[in-house]
């Protein structure tokens, strides 16, 4: 959730609370002095405009908050760390399988890796040997 959205939520909560309270006070006063005679026509019985507008504004801000809580989906590529961020400019994930897997292609991951990289059959000794050689080569270079 983005900062803008949180801000909208906070302000709208305040505004809505305030408008609710104003509305409560108005109706409370109306109860205390019920319009009972012919003069009442001139007395306001409708909610004052400013309270109404405040409710509308609070509502609008809340809806904006909900919508700005959506952010364009972003991904980091798997294999390089140069800070590049991939985005297709969508707020939601595409549902067609051939499009959905494109995200994997762009990121460079393989969703079936658990099968095709055969992780259970990794030869630990060979792996360690490679890294050892790599490390010693690195040291030589540094010298």
């Amino acid at each position, binding site marked *: 959730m983005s900062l803008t959205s949180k801000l909208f939520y906070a302000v709208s909560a305040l505004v809505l609370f305030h408008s609710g309270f104003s509305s409560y006070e108005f109706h409370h006063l109306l109860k205390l002095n019920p319009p009972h005679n012919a003069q009442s026509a001139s007395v306001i019985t409708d909610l004052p405009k400013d309270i109404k507008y405040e409710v509308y504004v609070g509502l609008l801000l*809340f*809806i904006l908050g*909900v919508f700005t809580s959506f952010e364009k989906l972003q991904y980091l590529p798997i294999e390089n760390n140069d800070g590049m961020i991939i985005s297709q400019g*969508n707020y939601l*994930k595409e*549902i067609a*399988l051939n499009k*959905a897997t494109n995200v994997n292609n762009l990121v460079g991951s393989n969703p079936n890796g658990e099968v095709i990289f055969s992780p259970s059959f990794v030869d630990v000794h060979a792996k360690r040997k490679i890294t050892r050689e790599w490390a010693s080569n690195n040291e030589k270079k540094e010298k």
Partner: protein
Amino acid sequence: MSLNEESFSKLNATVNVVDNKKRLLFVQDSCALVLGLAAGFLQIESVNGFLWFLVLYNVINVLYVVWICQLQPGKFYQSPIQDIFFESFFREITGFVMAWTFGYALIG
């Protein structure tokens, strides 16, 4: 085999379908509740309240299609009209009525 061949390109990624529905539901749930609360604050009564909900609920849905789906709801929902406008209608209207009566009683 021919049926099989047809269906392959029309497959959907189930995870994404569920995910998108969840996000839509969040929008509709929260908006319905706040709409109800606002209706209560404004002391709206009887049919007007339902009209208020109907109009604004659809406005929000349209906004969702325009803003979040970028006018291509078919890309993200299997049957856009059904999924966005009708599927959770009763769920939302009950939520709305609950918040509405709550707000109304609180103020009145």
